[in-house]
Structure formats: structure tokens, C-alpha cells
């Protein structure tokens, strides 16, 4: 008996030692197409080539689960392949990273195409490079290299117009208050806010109860610095969140809250309440991303939203938006090690972005990214304004910084508890950034 137990214990111990220090999510095999200099034809098969018997898996978040329904149906019809959408529960990015860490890879997935999130999924090991993709040349020049690139290699295909941080405002409230022109820079916006406040209208609505949106104000306030290379300096450790630019942005935001320009229930208010307040005209403005538009049309029909809600980008010195692509904006193809599957995954992308693109954006009622494909009729003005601001937009922290620290969490802490000072928020953000950068092996951390 005793011998048996010793045997089991020894076997188990050896097994663990052998398995102990290998990461199942990150094999050593090189990704397809990185080392063999494959020709473009091999790399990018004909979008409608026959794929009978091939089954592709596509991971999506709850918010993007039905996004690709039209291209999937058309692709299945054209090629004979089957595409299975697997919905990963929210928080999506965490769920995907955890699965990938255990060695579970899909063929395709919606993925935030920012450098920080491409780093987080270890793109150079887990994703297929998409260099030479046939549709890139057909895209609007200013959108071609906007995002999806890490260390000069393209890993994600932008499929819809990426989100932009800016100000959503209630047109009726502006009109009633006699505001005929949207502000031309941040200070003008604050002046308008003070006027509105005097008239008894809540100027800004913030949703610190749900926390994630609180970082937009800080990032919008950093837009000038971002244009001036802030994120490059942050990435090398040359500048820190605790230095003047970062600290001033947080402090300005805090001062505006203390001044009483925000909704009274700022600490507990939610994203949903933000949308409701803006629609109802209970608040005049909200700094948000495209997700707010989705929330608004979920509460009222698109026509009402188009009539009531407007959008303008804002930055300290002008009207520059801050772009932040999210997972629903882009697709990534995984390096699964199976060449046929990998080629089929690339073919799906080429199909979606190639012959099927017009049908796709018509189905989604969204702005076209390609010069030769017109934006479908009926795309709301708000979305067109958001898209128009992309051209001269600056990159967000998520897009440009090598790591994505929990800025939103610390800012929310400051708003909710009053315990954290702007200095504490900057310090906590910098510490977290350094921790993530160090884990990535970034020089200087």
C-alpha cells in the first residue's frame, strides 16, 4: 500500500516538474508566413476560392456577436466553408487572454487593434501577420496605418470606423440656451458649461458608477500632449504620468467636478443613466466614445437620436478627437499552426474587406473605410461626424502606450471616494503602467 502511494506521488511530482515551466499558450513554432517570404498570392488566396469542408471559429464579444453575420453567410455561400461564432462572455479581453494562455486558439477573433492590446495577446506569437493584405491599398489613406500595427507588422484588420473620444451633446439644450456654435476648444467648452450651469442646466454628465468612462476626460485633456509625442516619451520612461502633462489633465478634470459642472450623482451614475440624461436633456454634454451612440439608439430610435444628439471633437487647443479602436472595430487571425486553417482565416478577412465590403457596411449601416465603396444612405449624421474627426485625430493611451494601465479605476476612485488626490491617481497609474511594461520586457522598466 505504502509503495503504491509513493509511486503515485513520485509520478505526479515528475509530471509536474516536466510540465512545470512551459506556457501552453505560447508555443515556439513561428507564425505562418513570417519566415518563408511567401508570395502575396499564396499569402492571400482568392476571396471566393473553394473551402468546402473547412470550419473556421470566430470569437466575438456579446457586443460583436452578430456583427459578422452578413459576411459569414455570404462567405459560407461563396466558398462552402462554415464559420462558427463563439461568444466569449464579458469582460471579453480577459476571457480571450485566459483562453489563449491555456493554449485554446480560435481561427479568427474580434480584437482591439491597439498596440497595448496586441501586446497583451502576444501578437508576434499568437497572431498571423497580415502584411500585404490586398484591401489595405483600397482604404482611405489616412486610415490605412491608423491602427492594427505592432512593431511595424500588421496584426489586425480594421473593419469598421474606430471609436473616437469626443463630446456628445443635446442639440435642443444648446438651442434653448442660445448656443448656436459648438465650442472651438476646451476653454470655450468650459465657458459654455458655466453659462449652462448658471441657467440651471447640468452641463456635463459623467458615469463614475460604471467607472470605465472616467478616463476619457483625462485623455481628451491630453490630446495636445499626445500630438506632441507624449506616449512615445511615456513608453520609454522619459516622461511619467506624474509629470506636468498627466498631472495637469487629472487636476483640471477634478477642478471641473469640484466646481459643480457635473451631475450630482457622478459617483454612482451609470453608462445607461448617462445616455438617458443626455437624451432627455437633463444634461447638456458627455465626453464619450461611439459606445454611447449604440446605447442611445438602444433607448430611442435612430431618427430621434439623429435629431437630438450632436457630436464635436475636443482638445485643449482645438477640435481634435482622440481615436480609440475597440474590439468590435477589428478582426485578428490566429497562428494556430494549421496552414490550411490559417489560409482560410486570411481568406475570410480578404472576403469581408474585399468583394463583400459594400454589403457588410450596408448591413451594419456604418461609415465606409474604403474610398471606392460609398457610405450607405441613412448612416446617422452623428456617426458621420465621428468618422470625419478621425482624419486629424490623435491616438489614445490604449492605441499609443505600450501598456494600458487602470487609469479609469484610479480616476473613479478619486471621484467616488475623495480619498485619492490627482497626485495619487497619477502615481497609481504610473506604477501600474511600469508594472505592465516590466512584465512585457519593455526597455527602461
Amino acid at each position, binding site marked *: 500500500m505504502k509503495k503504491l502511494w509513493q509511486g503515485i506521488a513520485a509520478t505526479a511530482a515528475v509530471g509536474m516538474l516536466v510540465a512545470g515551466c512551459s506556457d501552453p499558450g505560447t508555443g515556439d513554432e513561428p507564425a505562418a508566413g513570417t519566415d518563408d517570404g511567401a508570395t502575396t498570392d499564396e499569402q492571400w488566396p482568392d476571396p471566393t476560392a473553394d473551402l468546402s469542408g473547412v470550419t473556421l471559429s470566430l470569437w466575438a464579444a456579446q457586443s460583436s456577436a452578430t456583427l459578422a453575420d452578413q459576411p459569414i453567410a455570404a462567405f459560407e455561400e461563396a466558398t462552402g466553408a462554415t464559420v462558427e461564432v463563439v461568444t466569449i462572455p464579458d469582460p471579453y479581453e480577459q476571457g480571450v487572454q*485566459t483562453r489563449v494562455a491555456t493554449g485554446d486558439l480560435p481561427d479568427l477573433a474580434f480584437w482591439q487593434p491597439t498596440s497595448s492590446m496586441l501586446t497583451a495577446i502576444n501578437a508576434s506569437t499568437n497572431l498571423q501577420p497580415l502584411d500585404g493584405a490586398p484591401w489595405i491599398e483600397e482604404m482611405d489613406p489616412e486610415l490605412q496605418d491608423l491602427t492594427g500595427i505592432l512593431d511595424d507588422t500588421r496584426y489586425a484588420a480594421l473593419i469598421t470606423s474606430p471609436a473616437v473620444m469626443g463630446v456628445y451633446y443635446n442639440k435642443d439644450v444648446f438651442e434653448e440656451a442660445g448656443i448656436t456654435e459648438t465650442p472651438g476648444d476646451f476653454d470655450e467648452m468650459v465657458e459654455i458649461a458655466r453659462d449652462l450651469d448658471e441657467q440651471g442646466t447640468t452641463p456635463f454628465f459623467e458615469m463614475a458608477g460604471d467607472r470605465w468612462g472616467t478616463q476619457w476626460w483625462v485623455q481628451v485633456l491630453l490630446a495636445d500632449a499626445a500630438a506632441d509625442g507624449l506616449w512615445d516619451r511615456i513608453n520609454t520612461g522619459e516622461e511619467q504620468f506624474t509629470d506636468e502633462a498627466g498631472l495637469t489633465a487629472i487636476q483640471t478634470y477634478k477642478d471641473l467636478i469640484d466646481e459643480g459642472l457635473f451631475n450630482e450623482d457622478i459617483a454612482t451614475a451609470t453608462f445607461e443613466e448617462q445616455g438617458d440624461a443626455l437624451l432627455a436633456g437633463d444634461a447638456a454634454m458627455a465626453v464619450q466614445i461611439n459606445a454611447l451612440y449604440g446605447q442611445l439608439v438602444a433607448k430611442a430610435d435612430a431618427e430621434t437620436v439623429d435629431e437630438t444628439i450632436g457630436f464635436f471633437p475636443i482638445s485643449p487647443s482645438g477640435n481634435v478627437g482622440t481615436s480609440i479602436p475597440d474590439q468590435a472595430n477589428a478582426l485578428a487571425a490566429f497562428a494556430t499552426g494549421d496552414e490550411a486553417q490559417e489560409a482560410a482565416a486570411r481568406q475570410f478577412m480578404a472576403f469581408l474587406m474585399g468583394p463583400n465590403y459594400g454589403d457588410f457596411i450596408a448591413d451594419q449601416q456604418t461609415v465606409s473605410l474604403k474610398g471606392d465603396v460609398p457610405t450607405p444612405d441613412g448612416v446617422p449624421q452623428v456617426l458621420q461626424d465621428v468618422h470625419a474627426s478621425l482624419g486629424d485625430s490623435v491616438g489614445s493611451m490604449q492605441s499609443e502606450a505600450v501598456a494600458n494601465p487602470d487609469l479609469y479605476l484610479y480616476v473613479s476612485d478619486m471621484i467616488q471616494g475623495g480619498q485619492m488626490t490627482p497626485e495619487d491617481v497619477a502615481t497609481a497609474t504610473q506604477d501600474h503602467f511600469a508594472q505592465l511594461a516590466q512584465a512585457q520586457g519593455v526597455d527602461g522598466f
Partner: protein
Amino acid sequence: MGNRQTHPRTFLIPAFVVMGIFFFTPTIYNFVYAFTDWSSFKAEINPVGLANFESLLSSGTLLTSLRVTLVYAVLVAIFQNLFGLGLALLLERDTRINRFSRVMFFIPVVMSALAVGYIFQALLKPAGALNQLLSLFTAEPVTTAWLGSTTWTIVVVALIHAWKWMGLSMLIYLAGLKTINEDVLEAARLDGASAWQTFRTIRFPLLAPAVTFNVATALLGSMNGFDIVQATTGGGPAGSTELLNIFIYRTFGQGLFAQATTMSLVLFVAVALLAFPVVRTLRKREEVL
């Protein structure tokens, strides 16, 4: 003993194999990976010694979360046992309405913890049902943010946790009450002891085994708490309800697998350090029986 055993000892093997695979192996990995730089960003895993522990301790967030977790566990243990014992005493007699009530109070135990959390989150928000009810009674608008205080929200979530699990404590206390010999209670009555005296000096001490089980499971179970708090506050406001498990979940989700593993190792050690003295002290009370 040897000749009287009813089953061969090899029958234990399946249970131990399951334990080994699903409990001991992950626990041992927990020890191994805590000393590496395992992350989602890199393919290799290298040993880094105590670096993870040093950086976690120096940043202070780990200790804050550990403190929050301890406060939460103690509050849950107190509330859950007070509610459970109170219900058991109220519903002790086997009447029809009591049997029905016991079932009702046991329902939250079998409910999904996340569902419970989301329901309470909806009830307690400023525009939620509780405030609407209060507004109705006080005839003025009540907009208290029940989950918005950095001091009291932890008490509120501990109450929710205790509410969910009080039915289980009640059941165990009821079983404990049933085991008390009727003769002892009759003797006390004959001696003129009041109901309170009987409870304080006879019934409660005789409940010691039930107290041991209930306190230990409530305290140690809520040290590992996650679901209810995640659903109600997500760790907020201002991190005042960020249990260690929520912190671990957040860290793991950012791809810092080694750091998350280190934290869960710390939690494991903390639970173990707490478990032994608590269980031993409670068992000591049973020795008089």
C-alpha cells in the same frame, strides 16, 4: 479495527486522484508560478525569485485588499451566524408555517450568487426600489447611494452575503437545537430558569459544534468571496470593497499571470493561517460537552 473494515482502502484512490488533479496540482502550481515572470506578453517563463512578492508588498495594494478581505470575512461571519441563529430559534417548533418559512429562507442559498448580487445592486441603486419605497413612506425623495459610501458599502455587501447564506446556518443551528436533550431543558424549567437563562447557559453552550461549523465555514468561505461583491460593486467605490479575489481576477485578466498567482498564494496562506487558530479555539469550546 483491521478486521472490521467494511471496504478495502483502495476504494479511496478515486477520491484521492480527483483531489490530486483538481486541488493539489493547482495548489502546487500556485507555489511554482508565484516565483516566475509568467505573463501573457511573453512566450518564455523564467524564475524571478521573490521579485513578485517584493513588488506586491511595496505597492501596498495587496495589503489593502487583504485587509478589506479580512474585514469582509469577519462581518459576514458575524451577520450570517446572528441571522442563522435568530431564524433557527424563531422557527424551531415544527409547525406548518415554520416549515414553510424554513424553505423560504433556504431559497437564497440555492440561488446563483451573481443573480443575488445583481438583484441587490438594482434594489440599492439611488433610483432603485429601496429608495422608492423609502420615498413613499417618508413623503420626500430619498436618493441615498447605498453602495456609494467608501466606509459603509463593505457592511452592506457583507449583509447581502450573510443574507444569501443565512439559510444554511439556520439549518445547521436547527439540527443542533434538535440534538439537545429534552430532559436537560425540562430540568431547567423545573428549576425556574427563564427562557433567556436557558438559552444563555444551556442551549447556546450545547450548540458549540454547530457554532464551530457555522463560524468556520462563514469566515473561511467569505475569505474566498468573489461573486456577490463582483456583481454588486465590482470592488468599488474607490476600492473599498475590493476583495483579494477581485484584485486577483483583475490582475490575471491583464495578463499578469505570475502576479495573480502570487496573490492567490498569499490568500491561500492567509486562509490557512486563519483557519487553524479559529477552528482550534472553537473546538476547545466543544471539549466541555
